[in-house]
């Protein structure tokens, strides 16, 4: 049985923990609102670009001589996995689930005798993957979008991926990130970046029709070879911005839970504190009374 003093100290320390987690929750909530707005504002660009690319790709994918970002290298021996994690912890299962997914994917690919390379964004992901897979790391990024995520952050990463692809360092590129579903739910997502997965409806539509619909300036091929690298960057940007919003959401939920748990703990500790105080008083009284009776 801890002494009264120990209990009092314990209660105070849990109280200050609760203050911290409550404050962190508020911070995450305000960041979340901004991140969510940013994610929503970024959507129109990405969806319109997808639509354009879908139109183009549908009519060109079947032809030979299409850009390699679209068709791939024709092999799938070397896989590059881009992992989007966060720089900071204390956000519940956010990084854990990205890392778990990555581990599963690396396992799958290695069993299929493929070579795997990893590009890790975020300090936490790197730390957690370092022990097992540090040999697979090709590039790691930290502090991406520390002061608000901008397109140029994604641009650097996209450039790097394209450079590696052109140097034939890998055949297939996939990004793993947390898609923002709602404040309390994040959905872990694997998205293939290279070769670009042509959306189904575009493939179904007969390509001759599409060609008839649009005129192209300067030419289909030229636009496509411009559009593809751009699209890659946009997809990276979208993944990062979604991941950032998810991180804030996850942190907010985690801190909300922590605040509630701290409250529960304070209640149960206070009850214990009062009980043992009562017990002590009772003991003292019994001692005094029995002492008086003995006289």
């Amino acid at each position, binding site marked *: 049985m801890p002494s009264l003093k120990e209990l009092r100290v314990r209660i105070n320390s849990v109280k200050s923990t609760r203050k911290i987690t409550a404050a962190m929750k508020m911070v995450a909530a305000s960041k979340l609102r901004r991140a969510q707005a940013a994610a929503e504002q*970024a959507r129109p*660009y990405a969806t319109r670009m997808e639509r354009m690319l879908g139109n183009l790709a549908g009519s060109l994918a079947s032809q030979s001589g299409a850009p390699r970002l679209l068709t791939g290298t024709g092999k799938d021996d070397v896989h590059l996995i881009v992992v989007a994690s966060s720089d900071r912890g204390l956000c519940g299962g956010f990084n854990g689930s990205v890392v778990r997914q990555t581990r599963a994917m690396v396992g799958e690919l290695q069993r299929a005798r493929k070579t795997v390379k990893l590009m890790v964004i975020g300090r936490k992901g790197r730390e957690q993957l370092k022990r097992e897979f540090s040999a697979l790391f090709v590039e790691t990024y930290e502090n991406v979008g520390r002061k608000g995520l901008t*397109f140029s952050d994604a641009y650097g990463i996209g450039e790097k991926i394209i450079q590696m692809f052109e140097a034939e360092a890998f055949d297939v590129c996939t990004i793993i990130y947390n898609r923002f579903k709602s404040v309390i739910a994040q959905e872990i997502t694997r998205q293939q970046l290279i070769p670009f997965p042509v959306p189904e409806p575009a493939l179904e539509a007969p390509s001759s029709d599409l060609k008839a619909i649009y005129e192209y300036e300067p030419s289909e091929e030229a636009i496509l070879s411009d559009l593809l690298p751009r699209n890659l960057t946009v997809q990276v940007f979208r993944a990062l911005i979604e991941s950032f919003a998810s991180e804030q959401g996850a942190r907010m939920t985690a801190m909300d839970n922590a605040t509630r748990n701290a409250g529960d703990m304070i209640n149960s500790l206070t009850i214990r504190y009062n009980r043992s105080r009562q017990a002590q008083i009772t003991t003292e009284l019994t001692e005094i009374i029995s002492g008086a009776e003995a006289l």
Partner: protein
Amino acid sequence: MAEKVEFELVSPERLLVSEPVEMVVVPGSEGDFGALPHHAPMLTSVRPGVIDVYENGKVKNRIFVAGGFAEVTEERVTVLAEEAIPVAEIEAEAVADRIRIAGEKVEEADGDRARNEAQRLLRIAQALKAAYDERPVL
């Protein structure tokens, strides 16, 4: 004029403009083109330059774009811009800075790839300066 064309200008960070207008003139990579309602559908890349938005036969709004893509359909013009700044908000100092930085990058660049990239930035900066210089003086 009753008929209008829906003009959308989107940058990676957000949707900048979405409104029905009379005509837009877009700096296509093969030359400027004006898009009125019922324009033939086309897809084109956009060079760094200024988009003019026309209303009642006059230029209502001028927006600088740093290149991108445009999709024109009968009822809509969508411009995906890498960067977009209303011409009225361009600042002389920022323009000078960009040209200087881009110029330095061209000097420093080693390898074709880096040089191409730096030259692209320089072209954007120069187009921005041109847009700033020809703005109507109020």
